[in-house]
């Protein structure tokens, strides 16, 4: 993957940042530009959370107790499991076991769909309790963060379907799998963001 066009076209960085000096880039450089942009976006959300919590500590102490914690925990486990399936899919393609790799990718999509269904159910449950974006400062931050994350899981699940299609057409092998690996690191990034969102919104008082 070292010589793939995606990794050699951006010669704008110092030599010390190159793969030869700093180590292999999983996936490709463009996906990492995307990932670092997404991390910045979520970083702004987290900063907004902490600023709002500073000004409204009572609202943020009460907010998590009004949410359905069981659904939050279930979604965390579902996303962690999906990351595991993605890592297994990568391990399988590296030994040219395309069937196994495809099976793990389907399991990852399945987990993504379960997450989306649970999240829709949670939004519906919130609605039944009378919670909306205007209920309090906590719920404004909650909906901004969780709906944004929801969209990321949605389009990344579609991306997995595309990778499955490419895998079936023989596009990936043990020697050439940087496209699939790019999706894998993106999916793990989405999981990482939920690892931070979950305690902020569901656990901390």
């Amino acid at each position, binding site marked *: 993957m070292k010589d793939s066009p995606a990794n050699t076209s951006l010669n704008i960085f110092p030599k010390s940042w190159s793969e030869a000096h*700093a180590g292999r*880039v999983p996936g490709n450089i463009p996906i990492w530009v995307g990932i670092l942009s997404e991390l910045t976006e979520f970083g702004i959300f987290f900063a907004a959370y902490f600023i709002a919590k500073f000004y409204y500590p009572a609202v943020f102490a009460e907010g998590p107790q009004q949410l359905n914690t069981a659904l939050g*925990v279930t979604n965390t486990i579902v996303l962690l499991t999906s990351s*595991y399936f993605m890592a297994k899919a990568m*391990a399988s393609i590296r030994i040219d076991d395309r069937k196994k790799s495809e099976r793990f990718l389907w399991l990852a999509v399945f987990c993504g769909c379960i997450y989306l269904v649970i999240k829709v159910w949670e939004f519906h449950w919130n609605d039944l309790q009378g919670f909306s974006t205007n209920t309090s400062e906590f719920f404004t931050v909650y909906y901004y963060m969780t709906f944004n994350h929801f969209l990321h899981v949605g389009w990344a699940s579609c991306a997995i379907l595309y990778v499955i299609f490419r895998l079936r057409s023989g596009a990936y092998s043990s020697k050439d799998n940087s496209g699939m690996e790019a999706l894998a690191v993106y999916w793990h990034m989405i999981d990482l963001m939920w690892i931070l969102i979950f305690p902020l919104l*569901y656990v901390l*008082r």
Partner: protein
Amino acid sequence: MKNFGKLEILLCLLIIVTLFNTFLGERFSSITLASIIIAATVTYKGFVVIDNFMELKEGNKNLRFLMRLYFIIFPSMIVVSAFY
């Protein structure tokens, strides 16, 4: 059990830590101490995913540094926010 390898053990650990976090948040009386422990476990979970699932442990050291830094900065803010 022959297929029960490192990734499976890490997944189990991550799930256990998640459940432990939830239990702490729901039952622990000291909010400050619970926040500190939760922040530490969030950092641990982040490092596990970055090193083992994203495979940055043997990967690019600059990317690994940036990713790990992210999971030091925001959990640190959890600790700070416990003292508001």
